[in-house]
């Protein structure tokens, strides 16, 4: 059963929301209901075969690791071992994804991030041993609305919501908002995304005039972007809506991404919970380590903040590309966005011309337009359109 797509899912969801509404409006906690229904949904999603076994072994490894780490949170070596162990199933799965898909289950990419966030914050001393109860841990990791494709919530935020029993009026507001978000998401994903997808077909570069062929490829790219946006933003709205109905104020994933004023702004608007996860746990930690250990070792380039940021951006986006999948299209997409962010960093920090004119209306319009086209080219890489054209040219 595919979440937020199959009719059976929506029927089951309606029942879950109806019971949640009764519980919530009568002043009961929704945490246990959320966990019980998540287990039922996951059983429907994963079946009784290898995917369920993979999920249970993942949970066992992650759980044992994080509990061990909580005993000695500042042990650097143990921290690396636990990070590695939590990441291992995802790495094995990604490496074997093109053949046998070992250790994989639907949602592994997202649940790995949530489990790693807990590991990082235990290590930082932000999550104590007594805040790692099994019920809390499972209700966070298995929460079905966010399980298969996010949004990637944060445990301390999630559990604060889960533990709180809101007053009746407040819950009524959350329920109403949740139902509206569900309906809006359905419109996005089941209507608009379906329409865009129907028209999206890869076409080879033809024999017509250069500009006409280019315009045709651009049209295909824009259609794909429309499909991807409505499909994923629609899914995210529904996931958010179902979360609200269960008392969880799930963070939003999209905020008008095509209005972005530069590439950094784009990543603050597109798949927000993924990009902020990478910002907090990859970019910021990597640049911090580079600055601290680089200074100790006397590396001169780490004194140049623009250079450090550029290295951080490329590594950050390459890691994101690997997470999408170990294929040329995804790695190319990650590298492309890393380079764009690095170039943007130079522009914003070092270009006197840009800095002198950045508040001018024409510059803002130009930046918006250029950013949109660069983002679209990124989608053409992501969707396989670029590699399709390159293959066509090579075999030509």
């Amino acid at each position, binding site marked *: 059963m595919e979440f937020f797509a199959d009719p059976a899912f929506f029927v089951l969801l309606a029942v879950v929301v109806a019971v949640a509404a009764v519980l919530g409006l009568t002043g009961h906690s929704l945490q246990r209901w959320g966990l019980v229904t998540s287990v039922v949904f996951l059983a429907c999603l994963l079946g009784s075969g290898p995917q369920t076994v993979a999920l249970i072994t993942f949970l066992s490894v992650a759980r044992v690791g994080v509990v061990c780490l909580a005993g000695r949170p500042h042990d650097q070596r143990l921290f690396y071992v636990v990070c590695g162990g939590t990441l291992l199933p995802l790495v094995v799965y990604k490496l074997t994804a093109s053949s046998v898909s070992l250790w994989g289950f639907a949602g592994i990419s997202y649940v790995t991030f949530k489990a790693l966030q807990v590991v*990082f*914050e235990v290590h*930082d*001393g*932000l999550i104590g041993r007594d805040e790692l109860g099994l019920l809390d841990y499972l209700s966070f990791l298995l929460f079905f609305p966010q399980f298969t494709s996010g949004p990637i919530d*944060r445990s301390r935020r999630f559990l604060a919501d889960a533990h709180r029993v809101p007053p009746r009026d407040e819950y009524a507001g959350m329920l109403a908002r949740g139902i509206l978000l569900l309906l809006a998401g359905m419109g996005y994903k089941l209507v608009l995304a379906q329409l865009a997808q129907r028209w999206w077909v890869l076409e080879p570069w033809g024999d017509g005039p250069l500009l006409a062929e280019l315009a045709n490829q651009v049209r295909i790219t824009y259609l794909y972007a429309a499909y991807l946006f409505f499909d994923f933003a629609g899914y995210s709205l529904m996931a958010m809506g179902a979360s609200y109905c269960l008392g969880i104020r799930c963070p939003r994933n999209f905020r008008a991404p095509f209005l972005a004023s530069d590439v*950094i702004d784009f990543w603050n608007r597109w798949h927000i919970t993924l990009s902020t996860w990478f*910002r*907090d*746990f990859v*970019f*910021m*930690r990597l*640049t*911090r380590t580079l*600055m*601290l250990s680089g200074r100790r070792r006397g590396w001169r380039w780490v004194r140049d*903040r623009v250079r*450090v*940021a550029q290295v*951080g951006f490329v590594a950050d986006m390459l890691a994101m590309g690997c997470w999408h999948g170990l294929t040329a299209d995804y790695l190319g997409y990650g590298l492309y966005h890393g380079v764009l962010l690095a170039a943007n*960093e130079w522009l914003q920090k070092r270009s006197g011309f840009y800095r002198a004119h950045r508040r001018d209306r024409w510059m803002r319009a130009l930046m918006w337009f250029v950013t949109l086209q660069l983002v679209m080219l990124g989608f053409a890489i992501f969707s396989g359109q670029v590699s399709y054209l390159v293959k066509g040219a090579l075999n030509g």
Partner: protein
Amino acid sequence: MGDATESVRERTLSLLEEVCGDPAVRDHLDDDLFELGLLDSMGAIELLVGIEDEFGVSIAPTEVPRSEMNTPNKIVAQVEGRA
């Protein structure tokens, strides 16, 4: 006590001025530095590393939500609460 607090405040603001590369931070004590474009993720890390160097206070990147560390006065308060 008054002097000590004053100097933590002054040293934090100098550090912030250096990280943002703009003395204008002192004119925006209650404004969101991220919205003003004076601070970004890289600047935030430089600030955390600088605070660690200057005061021996370690703040992990996700320890304080952005909304509680986005203005000069809030940043000073975070440092004063720990130094």
